[in-house]
């Protein structure tokens, strides 16, 4: 019994020292990471805005893919929406931003955060990966299955089907959400 208490105290002491070291490191790195993430998000919003004026962010709760929506305007007229998206990739949750016309046609998209495998799912952050979804969501359906892609595009996502499906479903979910907002005002 005494031996077990001694072991528990040793482990507790090691854990306490480790927790202190982690807390200290976190207090130094957290503000830097928050600032960096905010800059990255702002740059992503500008990149997908297509030159339209970015409005106020409105949180969306209870949607499977959409977490927030931002109205895009052109001379005070609603031109479309930027939508914050989340989806479950191969390595865990991934977040994206995508912009749509008021009819739900995707304009631009960018991957923000993910834990996909380097060399495979991680390709989704490369410039050009989202091109296969551009112009889809309205007249043309979002390719949610590899069979809906051309040969070269299907080849490009070979080995990372889970990531592709996760991105495609999120973009499709965003398109459906924008359509549900009722089109151009």
């Amino acid at each position, binding site marked *: 019994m005494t031996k077990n208490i001694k072991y528990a105290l040793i482990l507790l002491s*090691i854990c306490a020292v480790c927790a202190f*070291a982690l807390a200290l490191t976190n207090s130094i790195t957290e503000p*830097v990471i928050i600032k*960096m993430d905010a800059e990255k998000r702002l740059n992503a919003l500008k990149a997908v805005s297509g030159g339209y004026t970015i409005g106020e962010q409105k949180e969306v709760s209870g949607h499977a893919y959409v977490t927030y929506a931002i109205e895009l305007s052109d001379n005070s007229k609603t031109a479309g929406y930027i939508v914050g998206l989340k989806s479950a990739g191969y390595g865990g949750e991934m977040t994206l931003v995508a912009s749509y016309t008021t009819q739900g046609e995707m304009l631009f998209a960018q991957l923000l955060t993910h834990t*996909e495998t*380097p060399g495979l799912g*991680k390709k989704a952050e490369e410039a050009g990966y989202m091109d296969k979804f551009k112009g889809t969501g309205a007249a043309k359906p979002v390719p949610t299955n590899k069979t809906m892609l051309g040969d070269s595009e299907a080849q490009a996502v070979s*080995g990372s089907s889970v990531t592709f499906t996760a991105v495609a479903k999120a973009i499709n979910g965003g398109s459906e959400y924008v359509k549900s907002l009722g089109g151009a005002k």
Partner: protein
Amino acid sequence: MKANMKELTKGIFKENPVFVIVLGLCPVLGVSSQVSNAIGMSAGVMFVLLFSNIIISALRKIIPSSIHIPAYIVVIASLVTITEMVMHAFVPAVYSALGVYLPLIVVNCIILGRAEAFASKNTVFDSILDAIGMSIGFALGITLIALIRELFGSGTITLFPVGTFSGVINIPWFIDNPIRVLALAPGALLIMGFLKAFFDWNTLRKKDR
């Protein structure tokens, strides 16, 4: 002094963790697609291995054998988390490139293997030498595989961007004639197999003498 040098150099060739002891192959195969990733992973492993060896060696008389594994794992996991937070904040490009392989250093057999086989039985000074030697051996192994894969598979050598230098060096002829399979996952296994065969042949040759 000679014994100390032996502890330092054994990990580089004689007991190279990648090609001789065959430890930590998951990150070696996973992130050796680019030289910059290999260097980043080597830096992470070096930091974690050095400090885990120091801490475990210093605590070797305090940690009872019946709880040594959970104690080692707590220390190693904390060091990996610290490495992850520091890389995320100060070298985001490397953090992003390493992805899931960075937290996986926790289960890298080199770290726990050296803690168990060496640091728990030797002095802090010897453990530091062991960690440095093993880290250099690991870095040489993963960087050599990455260099071969990237050079022959993509025709480039990717380092870190500095000022106007983008970090990517295009190698003439190789960039126009890449052997694509080497840049893909099977390429890592192929190169690892050839280099392992070379190290085995070299070891046997020395024994025969």
